[in-house]
């Protein structure tokens, strides 16, 4: 009953999404450590990649939610999964281009829901699962993260107020290495699971796995490696926005923000919530700005992010639906191949456009002047 060529294309596209998920989200764990120079940019992405890899093996709760909690698996075809992934990848690339830390998870869920709606109508979507496992956690998590981070920042500054400035920055930089590592590990437990869930969904749709089956080991391994590879690429544009654009961060603040993110993400993984790690990290960074007296929070940058959060689910859903219509109106394997060519063309275009305002490990920390495009071009090496 299955079509192995199409299945292979879907799995490859799923891994492509996993890769964008990796580099889009490196910032969540490492932006603040890079901004405070607790870690050099290249060491930061290497460490984060390794811990994402380990984290991906630690839990499968979220993969189970994605594979069977959101859409009616009996109505999902390979074309639906493919179209959803294509929509998610395009939205992830667009937000990366603008340096916006939007949620890769919402892009993925939005894309799949959009293509499911286009293919089978609204009865194929488990709305209650969507609201209770995705939307409500999405709305609450940034506030919880901000509260925890603001409390942590306040406590840390109070305790550290009599410390010599040198001891303080050195001490909390060490702390940051630990807390950022925990965020990377947490990211692996939550985000790597999402692609595992989607590929499991594709295997079920193809009849390779029975409905309700658990994720096969090879899927876990391949997804873990891919997200680690993406993380190692480093999404420098998003790192710059989160590390330099939102709040000017000192090491005690970065430490508090990362601790808060790690705790909230790991707890949510524990409950099987497919939480947006991006929104948690952003909430924490805002919170660490609020918790320190006199720290400046750039609310216009925060506002732009919040807007992106609200539109990510519907925008990815629209793109998922469009790519489903394109694929299904042509039909069969040919339809998917046409979709794939369009996807590659759009990705290539966005990448080519990004070259003129390139952000790299060399200029990621240059002064924030209102845009993600750094004032120093990527070619001037300072070190």
């Amino acid at each position, binding site marked *: 009953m299955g079509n192995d060529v199409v299945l292979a294309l879907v799995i490859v596209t799923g891994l492509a999404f996993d890769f964008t998920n990796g580099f889009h989200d490196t910032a969540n764990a490492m932006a603040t450590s890079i901004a405070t120079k607790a870690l050099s940019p290249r060491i930061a992405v290497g460490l984060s990649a390794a811990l994402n890899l380990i984290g991906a093996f630690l839990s499968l*709760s979220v993969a189970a939610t994605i594979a069977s909690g959101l859409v009616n698996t009996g109505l999902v075809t390979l074309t639906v999964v493919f179209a959803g992934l294509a929509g998610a990848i395009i939205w992830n690339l667009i937000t990366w281009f603008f340096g916006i830390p939007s949620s890769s998870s919402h892009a993925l869920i939005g894309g799949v829901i959009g293509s499911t709606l286009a293919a089978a109508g609204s009865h194929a979507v488990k709305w*209650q699962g969507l609201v209770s496992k995705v939307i409500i956690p999405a709305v609450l998590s940034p506030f919880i993260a901000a509260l925890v981070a603001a409390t942590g920042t306040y406590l840390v500054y109070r305790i550290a107020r009599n410390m010599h400035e040198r001891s303080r920055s050195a001490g909390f930089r060490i702390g940051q290495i630990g807390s950022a590592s925990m965020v990377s590990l947490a990211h692996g437990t939550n985000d790597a699971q999402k692609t595992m869930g989607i590929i499991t969904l594709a295997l079920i749709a193809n009849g390779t796995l029975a409905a309700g089956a658990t994720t096969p080991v090879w899927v876990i391994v391949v997804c873990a490696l891919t997200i680690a590879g993406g993380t190692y690429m480093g999404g420098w544009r998003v790192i710059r926005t989160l590390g330099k654009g939102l709040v000017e961060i000192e090491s005690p603040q970065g430490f508090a923000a990362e601790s808060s993110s790690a705790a909230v993400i790991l707890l949510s993984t524990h*409950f099987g919530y497919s939480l947006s790690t991006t929104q948690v990290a952003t909430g924490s960074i805002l919170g660490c700005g609020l918790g320190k007296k006199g720290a400046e929070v750039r609310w216009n940058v925060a506002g732009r992010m919040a807007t992106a959060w609200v539109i990510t689910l519907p925008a990815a859903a629209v793109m998922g639906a469009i790519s489903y219509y394109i694929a299904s109106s042509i039909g069969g394997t040919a339809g998917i191949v046409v979709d794939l060519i369009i996807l590659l063309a759009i990705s290539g275009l966005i990448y080519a456009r990004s070259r003129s305002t390139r952000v790299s490990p060399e200029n990621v920390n240059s002064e924030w002047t209102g845009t993600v495009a750094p004032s120093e071009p990527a070619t001037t090496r300072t070190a």
Partner: protein
Amino acid sequence: MNEWIDWKAVWEIVVVGLLAGAGLPAIFAIGMRAIALPAKGHPEDSDALFGGNPMEIAAATLCFLIVLAAVGYGIYIIVKSGHAH
């Protein structure tokens, strides 16, 4: 708990989140403070970052061990529950 929002889970995330996400950094900060140089009265030309008498070093070590143990326990819980499905 109701069908749409699991308030018990939300509540647990807030409380445990505060304990782990804000409490542990505070304990780490106490440890750092024990071995940090004071803000005043330290010669500026020295390169030293940390110091302290054996009592202070022991207190700091205890704080850091508490943090490490809590983190280790957290990971253990995640792994244990994450493969039960």
